[in-house]
């Protein structure tokens, strides 16, 4: 089935220089293995094509049912250098929640 991350996750994003961090948190414990399986660094890099210009790193926090992504070279230089309206990547968590994934598992909302 096809699911949108927004329906099973919440999140928050912020900046460190020109790198954005995007935290993705499963709304229920049983959703965590699903995002851990399907929301890979490669998948996220593809999703943020044209935004995350550098590499994408992924870290797991199973204890918080969460994944942390680092999107390198994603903020137009970062800080006061950036010409982006969202120079601190505050809306990028929402952008990740728009992602749709095709899963084999049956998800109960």
């Amino acid at each position, binding site marked *: 089935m096809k699911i949108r991350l927004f329906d099973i996750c*919440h*999140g*928050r*994003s*912020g*900046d*460190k*220089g020109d790198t954005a*961090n995007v*935290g993705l*948190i499963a*709304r229920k414990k049983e959703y965590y293995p699903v995002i851990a399986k399907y929301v890979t660094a490669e998948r996220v890099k593809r*999703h*943020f*094509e*044209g*935004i995350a210009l550098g590499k994408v790193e992924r*870290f*797991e*926090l*199973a*204890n*918080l*049912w*969460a994944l*942390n992504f*680092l999107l390198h070279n994603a903020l*137009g*230089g*970062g*800080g*006061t*250098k950036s*010409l*982006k*309206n*969202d120079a601190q990547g505050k*809306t990028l*968590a*929402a*952008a990740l*929640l*728009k*992602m749709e994934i095709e899963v084999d598992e049956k998800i109960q909302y």
Partner: protein
Amino acid sequence: MLAWGYSSSSEKLKNFIRIASGQGFWGDLLRAPLDQVTKGPVDYMMMDYLAEVTMSIMQKQKRKDPKLGYAKDLVELMGEILPICVNKNIKVITNGGGVNPVACSEAIVATARKLGIKKLKVGVVLGDDILGRIDELGIDLRNMETGESMNSIRSRLQSANVYFGAWPIVEALKQGAQIVITGRTTDTGLTLAPMIYEFDWKKDDWDKLAAGTVAGHILECGGQASGGNFSADWRSVPDLARIGFPIAEAYPNAEIVITKHENTGGLVTLQSVKEQLLYEIGDPTQYITPDCVADFTTIQLDEVGKDRVKLSGVRGKQATDFYKVSMSYLDGYTAFGTLTYSWPDALDKARKADEILRTRVNDLGLKFDEIRTEYLGYNSSHGGIADIAKEVNEVVLRVGVRGKDRESVERFGKELAPLILTGPPSVTGFAGGRPKPSEVISYWPALIPKSAMKPGTLIVEA
């Protein structure tokens, strides 16, 4: 849950302490600190004022007036809360001293005198500002991300501050300070310090130090842990207008309950705490501070009551041998202009205006390192991820330029307004006047051996 109140003997270790978050950044909700010290019991209040760019702004203010260079509204705020803090014996710890913590503490002492408060001890943490000593130190503070030598930015350096941790604050508390003013101390150190001081934690109690650091990370952004910027379900947050900032109720065994005052807005839930834990972190197993290296993958969270989330099980590792240095340097100029285009064909008109603008600045031979166009209300936040509307009623054209040549950036600002009478129709929203160039302050992170630095403390008394 322990009842409120503990032994009156100051010699005895307390059963628990309550540390309130008062400000999450310079410019935060001004009412929050007053609420924190009046709406329920607290022992400490921490206030975080400093971001990476803040130090350079403060250095600029200090260059104009050697008595400035700190968060001025902190002094006004202290005037408001000092009588309450003295009366209730609440200690206040803040890094609002910026690049001039001594002048800041003197201003607070003067305020205390005006209020008739006597014998107030204000502790000051010194030694983080190394801008004036950078040559004398004789260390090339290479960019820790690129490895580049400091020489390339030496002449444009605006600020250089070492991130100290909790221990200098602990020293000030031991000397009897009720108010502690620091310069570039880590946000997390402001919360960790009172736990170390009250519970007599040791320098190698890595797990406990890590737990206090995690609590500090939760508190350092104020309302962002208690219902502000809450993506899980923002509609469900009660009374955001009167949001209560978070409070850490810390126990000697390093169990910590995140809560907030009753009868305030907002919420403290697993989800609100998790969102803040995920904010601005890198590798979660290596959350590096001067005090320890905390492992965020060991944090256990439990909801233990309404607006009460318990934090336990946190593991920490030995601190590194280095302090992080936050440096900033001048890196050119930017200017931004916006114009609003309405139906019909709002987006097409905005695009045409952008094309005309670019042709004109090109004809003028203006030099920029970057020129960027965004369409607010259309896709500026999410680019290609955005759902594209068939027809938007209006769109804001936002053009930004950046360059080394100040005159080019200034001239760009004069090319915006003419578009109103010499560009596409149904345009408005040019009330702010010509865009002015502003300085780009770039950030240069480095490491310095701890052995090269000596944090100092000073007590100023009213």
